[in-house]
């Protein structure tokens, strides 16, 4: 064997070896920021649900490097936030830090508090921006929830809005701002703890970038930024060029909600142009903003569309401004899934409609060609993920309030695999942790009677969706209130390319006689001693015709009790007994 003569190969302009080393360094910085935030954060939503993100942006505001986080946080928003900072503060100084939670200026929703820190060199030149963002346990809403679906507008929502407000100058706190927060946020001590964690994370990122620059020089870092974004764009372009050309429209419908009695119909048009290496997503043909907290912010509209696209293609393409250049997302002002016009409320902008938008984008992608796109991921905040509150008589009758994460929605089938069982929703990408039954029963006076997968609730398909879960819990020696905001009970999660829908979600109360009583799709629900709340989470949609599913996979599902033999026969066209034995000839006959 002889080596190729390097002289005969056209040498790329970039140094791929140097790029690899520096990308590791940047990744390490983001990881360090995230680690600090995860481990020092105090609220459950931050450290248990891992609802936070960190990223590094270029001085111009391009997303350069992101870390592991719920996808809804980091794709199409940080760049808008940085642009607002650059606009409002043309002169940035070392030691500045800005609090940003305004959904009208690039943030996701008001409950996500972001800290932006400009990284400024010794000559006063703004070189990079670091951003750390975390969902808060409370953000000063008019009622004690950070997801206020029923809010008429931002005034009724009541959240304190910070459109890029300076909270540190010369590395010192602007204490007046912090005192304002402490007067309006319900758990001020916990908020202060989380705020410190977010700020600490951003400062760690800043310091690490300054050290890296000292080692290799700012010029090299700027070269890296440019080349890394170009590299990412080329990877994205190559990924798109390998896709089939086409256009598709997909539609869906969010379930009826308070102040939105008919629910929200949504549609998207997606065009894949391999010849241009571009994907276009058009969300403009949708209703105007609604008098509800369901409206998406610009950040969550764009991000949801981007998640749908990136879920549909080669997962190794980096997610940054370079690859984003190859996706054009068309949004409209004053649109429920577009650019909200103040004072429209965006209180639940990261979950309900965001999941619906991402889902129809990936389903439209699937319609364009086999081997890409995905079915729909289970959606909605089920009572299995409720904020539960009441009085705890084990500890002198003091109040308790906490969000529990006992039962996630099922994931969607895709071209390579079945749905992920603990996916939860599209925006989280399954990154949330699931509560231990023992921890939940220790923290609050509840008993979790049941938590198990619900057979035959998967969206059938060549690759099936994940089934929903059944969760049943109730108060122990007290009464409790459960606040939730579900979806998918009327309009379940659709399948793609001939795949079936997942089973709808459901919420019930089991009364003292054991009878099930249907509950509203949007809480709160009052559960007394002796009663239980029963939640069925959404099953994920299936991908491809179930009659083409590998019979061995069907047999395994039957053997493991995920699917009954009857459903295997009727839907998957596989004759299999309860022990998983396949009747080959009967199956051939069924599939003929």
């Amino acid at each position, binding site marked *: 064997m002889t080596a190729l003569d390097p002289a005969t190969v056209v040498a790329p302009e970039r140094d791929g070896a140097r790029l*690899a080393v520096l990308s590791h360094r940047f990744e*390490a910085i983001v990881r360090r920021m995230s680690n600090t935030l995860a481990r020092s954060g105090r609220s459950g939503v931050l450290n248990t649900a891992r609802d936070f993100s960190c990223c590094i942006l270029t001085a111009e505001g391009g997303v350069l490097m992101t870390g592991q986080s719920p996808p809804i946080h980091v794709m199409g928003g940080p760049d808008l936030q940085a642009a607002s900072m650059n606009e409002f503060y043309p002169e940035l100084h070392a030691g500045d830090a800005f609090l940003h939670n305004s959904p009208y200026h690039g943030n996701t929703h008001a409950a996500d508090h972001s800290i932006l820190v400009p990284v400024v060199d010794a000559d006063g030149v703004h070189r990079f921006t670091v951003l750390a963002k975390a969902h808060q346990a409370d953000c000063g809403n008019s009622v004690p929830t950070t997801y206020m679906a029923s809010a008429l507008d931002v005034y009724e929502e009541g959240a304190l809005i910070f459109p890029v407000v300076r909270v540190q100058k010369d590395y010192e706190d602007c204490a007046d701002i912090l005192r304002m927060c402490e007067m309006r946020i319900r758990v001020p001590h916990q908020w202060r703890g989380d705020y410190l964690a977010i700020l600490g994370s951003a400062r760690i990122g800043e310091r690490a970038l300054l050290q890296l620059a000292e080692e290799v020089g700012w010029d090299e870092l700027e070269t890296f930024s440019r080349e890394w974004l170009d590299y990412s764009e080329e990877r994205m372009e190559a990924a798109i060029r390998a896709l089939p050309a086409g256009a598709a429209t997909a539609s869906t419908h969010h379930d009826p909600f308070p102040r939105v009695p008919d629910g929200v119909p949504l549609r998207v048009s997606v065009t894949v142009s391999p010849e241009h290496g571009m994907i276009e997503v058009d969300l403009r043909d949708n209703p105007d903003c609604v008098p509800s907290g369901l409206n998406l912010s610009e950040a969550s509209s764009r991000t949801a569309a981007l998640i749908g696209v990136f879920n549909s293609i080669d997962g190794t393409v980096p997610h940054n401004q370079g690859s984003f250049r190859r996706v054009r997302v068309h949004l409209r002002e004053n649109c429920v899934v577009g650019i909200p016009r103040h004072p429209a409320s965006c209180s639940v902008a990261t979950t309900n409609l965001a999941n619906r938008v991402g889902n129809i984008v990936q389903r439209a992608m699937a319609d364009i060609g086999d081997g890409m796109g995905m079915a729909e991921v289970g959606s909605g905040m089920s009572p299995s993920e409720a904020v539960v509150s009441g009085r705890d008589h084990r500890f002198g009758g003091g109040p308790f309030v906490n969000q529990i994460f006992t039962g996630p929605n099922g994931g969607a089938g895709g071209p390579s695999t079945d749905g992920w069982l603990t996916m939860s929703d599209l925006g989280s990408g399954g990154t949330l942790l699931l509560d*231990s039954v023992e921890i939940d029963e220790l923290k609050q006076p509840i008993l979790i009677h049941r938590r198990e997968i619900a057979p035959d609730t998967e969206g059938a398909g060549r690759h099936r969706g994940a089934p929903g879960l059944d969760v049943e819990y109730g108060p122990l020696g007290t009464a409790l209130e459960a606040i939730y905001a579900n979806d998918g009970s009327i309009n379940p999660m659709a399948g793609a390319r001939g795949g079936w829908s997942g089973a709808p979600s459901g919420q019930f109360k089991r009364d003292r006689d054991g009878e099930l009583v249907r509950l509203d799709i949007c809480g709160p629900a009052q559960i007394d001693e002796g009663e239980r709340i029963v939640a069925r989470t959404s099953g994920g949609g299936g991908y491809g015709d179930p009659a083409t599913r590998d019979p061995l996979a069907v047999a395994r599902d039957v053997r493991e009790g995920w699917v009954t033999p009857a459903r295997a026969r009727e839907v998957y066209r596989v004759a299999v007994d309860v022990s998983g034995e396949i009747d080959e000839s009967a199956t051939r006959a069924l599939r003929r």
Partner: protein
Amino acid sequence: MASDQLRLSVDIGGTFTDLVVEERGELRLFKSPTDPDDPVQGILDVLAMAADSDGVALAELLGRVESFSHATTRGLNAVLTGNVARTAFLTTAGHPDVLLLREGGRQKPFDFTVPFPDPYVPRRLTFEVPGRITSAGEIREPIDAQAVVEVCAKLRELEVEAVAVCLLWSTIEPAHELAVASVLDRELPGIPYTLSHRLNPSLREYRRASSAAIDASLKPLMSRYIDGLTSRLRAAGLAGRILMVTSVGGVMDAGDAAGAPIVTINSGPSMAPVAGRAYAAAELGADAVIVADAGGTTYDVTLVRRGEIPSTRTAWVGDEGTGHMTGLPSIDVKSVGAGGGSIAWVDSGGLLHVGPQSAGSIPGPACYGRGGTAATVTDAALVLGYLDPTSFSNGTMTLDTDAARAAIGRDIAAPLGLEIVDAAHAILELTTEQMVRAIEEITLQQGIDPARAVMVGGGGAAGINAVAVARRLGSERLVLPAVGAALAAAGALMSDLTAVYSATVPAITDAFDIPRVDEALAGLRERCLAFAERVGGTRDQVTVTLFAEARYPQQIWELEVPLRSHAFGDAAAVARFAEDFHAIHTEILGISDDRSPVEVVSWGARARVPLRGETEILSARAPRSGEATSRRAFVPGMGIVDVPVRPLATLSAGEVLDGPVLLESPFTTIVVADASRVELGPAGSIVITPVREIPAREAAA
């Protein structure tokens, strides 16, 4: 210890079985290929090699053995390959999916090629047991013993070979698990089982269930293995005590290990830090240490903080999130797939990558000539002149430099537009970066500043980048022990008999039930003392370390806080404990919340019974061969130049060398490709002071 007695330690790796022989404080190292089908034969082979080298019969050598310590990946491999007993899982009614759901937390949100992982025990072998206990330990619904009898009938029918039992709140009230046990004893005699509250009395049902399931599933296999090992070694003439290495960096009698085989599952990486701690202390008096063990396929990083080796309760077998959590304390180790066999490649966008794919030892790197064609880290080291092709692995292998150059030329140099040597250097540079990443991750989590810690390198591939890694981290000193190629096996000779016990008695400092906690601590202490007696020591030989696993309310990460005394006694002691927690929180996470109460999730005790007398440092006997030469090798900024080569044995105390230099021993080469300073430490290790200045960039394109 009689002066002619020997202490042996054997570490079975994927490629080689390492033997370290200690005689009068001196260590000798032997390596022989691992026999994957019959690992005990591999042990006998390497023992025969040692006997040959002394010119004595094997039985004679073995007759002088005082103790034989053994680390094996047998249990680990069985779990990874699913090659374990057919195991049933008995769980609380309503909760059949404890093992399936795990704890959530998908690792790669955009990678939809990874399927949802199977549970450790399939649902068809999972059975629900009626009966419910509450968090307060009250029996809300009594256990249905008749239902358990019926389950047993099904288990017989299904030919189940082992049973794991994990019921909710069994740690607070074990009555239901004990009731299940008595039915199992009666209905399924001879079938081994594991009760979760006995094996792992800790909160969180998934972790406890996973511990119990893994343990039960290993019992038949590991009993057979340990019986076979013991009888064959005895038949060959072995005298002395047979010990197994545990996941927490200690050893235990082989018979005890057979009873709870899960405790040996992470024994592979647990011994390197024990040795690393000893050498860093002996050479430099350091108690903050980063230990990097570089093997053929993985790079394992462990730590020493204030002389203690930090452990974790969230160790996974397999990948985090998709593997199975052991749930039991385990030395905290960060492993990355950056070994000699890691494959370098260039993606469609022209970016260089190293790993995660590995050529392993078969087919191996291109230069092994065993059919591998991919460009690996070892190939890069060979192309750069860092390895001697004629004397690799003590001369047992000859490396093919042309094959290495061809692989790197084709796969790396051509697509990157680099010269072959520069491409090889780029591979090592990126590998260094990945190693640094692993070290930064674990030191960050344990609150250690890598620049202030001494780095200790071990493993056959350590020498290739250890200096580069230490320099990148800003370490002041790097220690490469003479037994470095078998650091883990050497560590087993320095370890103690250990046990870890825990008690789930939740407490919070603003409502602290002192008598209840003190009672639990007394119980833990008593178990440690009983352990000392059981392993043949006395109560005054045991060192008991009590600790709390504590956090601020609502946090999900616990930090380990050592307790100042055996009991709290009064409120002042509780206040001091809270202060200790705040200080540790600051140390590890950079901030503290002094106004907040501290919540204790569980209490723990570590028992340590020393096996050896006064701890003299174990030094290696240097092979007396070789002479100083030189070879063409790569020095960054200079290219391929003549670089001095020094066999380790030719170094003398007090001699100071400045790099570039290559230091060779039979099993490893230490590459000093810059001006770092090399000395021989008092205990025989190579001690390197990395150069500090920021390197001048090489000629850029």
